[in-house]
């Protein structure tokens, strides 16, 4: 049956029974919708008692297990194909390299997660965020070239002009590159692309193709 429709400002439920997901807001201990769309309630997945939690790069306390409330959210699927999404910290994004400077690579963020962005957001990849290993020996022009399509992860909101991105894991990096001669290249190793016609290798920070 069609999910219930939510108008901004519509009461969804007491905040003691639900957790606020995207598209909702809390006002005086009640949950209200803040976006026009359909309501979806997500039950928290049954948490089997996890083994020793894999050591995260950052020591973060274990979430206590007492809060098992369903999260309620309002999604705009179907309203209009143009869904306005803002790159959030932690999202994996696809972007195109627009400018290369010795101290940073400027990129235009095109796709966040799986939604194609309509607005153009600018991102920056700093040399120390290109690789997880040997961070100080990274040369930008050996990792990216203008026109490459890069898969990166947002690591911070950055400054007033651009987000800060990183390609510091194996499956992040250049996924499509065009060679000097201008034809599409294919990856040969974790740091080289080869031009099929001229056979010349060019250095890139290659994303592990899956």
């Amino acid at each position: 049956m069609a999910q219930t429709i939510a108008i901004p400002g519509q009461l969804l439920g007491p905040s003691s029974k639900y957790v606020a997901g995207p598209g909702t807001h809390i006002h005086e201990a009640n949950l209200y919708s803040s976006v026009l769309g359909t309501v979806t309630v997500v039950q928290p997945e049954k948490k089997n008692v996890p083994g020793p939690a894999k050591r995260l790069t950052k020591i973060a306390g274990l979430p206590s297990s007492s809060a098992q409330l369903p999260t309620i959210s309002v999604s705009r699927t179907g309203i209009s194909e143009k869904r306005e999404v803002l790159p959030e910290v932690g999202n994996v994004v696809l972007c195109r390299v627009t400018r290369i400077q010795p101290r940073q690579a400027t990129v235009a963020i095109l796709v966040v997660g799986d939604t194609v962005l309509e607005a153009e957001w600018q991102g920056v990849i700093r040399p120390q965020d290109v690789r997880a290993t040997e961070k100080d020996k990274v040369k930008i022009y050996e990792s990216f070239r203008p026109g490459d399509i890069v898969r990166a992860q947002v690591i911070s909101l950055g400054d007033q002009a651009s987000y800060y991105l990183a390609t510091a894991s194996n499956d992040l990096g250049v996924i499509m590159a065009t060679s000097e001669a201008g034809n599409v290249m294919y990856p040969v190793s974790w740091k080289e692309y080869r031009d099929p016609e001229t056979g010349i290798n060019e250095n890139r920070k290659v994303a592990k193709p899956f």
Partner: protein
Amino acid sequence: MADRRRINGPVGATTPPIFDKPAAPAAAKTRDAIRKIFLKTGITPSASGSAYLELENPNPKRPGNTSLKLSCTVHGPRALPRSAPFSPHIILTTHVKYAPFATRQRRGYLRDSSERDLGVHLETALRGAIIADRWPKSGVDIIVTVVEGDQDRDSPESQKDDEGWDMMNVLSGCITVASAAIADAGIDCVDTVAGGVAALVCKDDKTAPTIVMDPIVAEHGSILAACCVAYLPTRDEITNMWFKGRLPGADMMVYDKLMEKSLVACRCANRVIVQELNETVRKGQGIS
């Protein structure tokens, strides 16, 4: 010596031609409801959100029976220009622009001070509703174009209304149409905002003044005072209020009654918004 090439007009002032006597306005039936509103969202594909609003003219004398036409487009949330300082919340900019043909007095293409004033009112009304810190470092532009102002074309020139009461009707229309357009654009809002106007009118100085909702300027003898309110119905809060005019005494009674009446007008307008938004979602579900 006069410039020979230029043919100068007659020296003294001449009076313009006088057309036939316009028919006197029909006796306004006491209307205790707001004018019918037509609201449609998603009319401009290129904008991320848009809406179109029309107010029906209860006693039409001209072919088109509307007295107010507004079109609103929302562009955003989009990246801020490089020079803008860092802002942890969305930067809201509103523009209200009259089309040159919208009012009896033709307006130019540059925004004059009254339009900028309406823009500031609209910004205050909407900023209360928008949850700003959901969209850090981004900006949204809300542009409302007044296609037809709420001015009666037939009232004789001598009653030329220069008090600006029609601006309040235009502002309440702008608030309603902008709120629908923002919801259409998917910008997080605490509630839908509805605009409403109530006025203290009196036929002539004998009869006691009465309070009327959604006043038509030409219909009433003279308007003593009016107020335009932007209202959040579910939260029961007012984000913008603009009162102007002269109340007979200093007693707050008349002032409070005027305000309550305008809130009733807001609730009626809000019903139209809710119905239209439901419509768009239902239509959206139909497709997907």
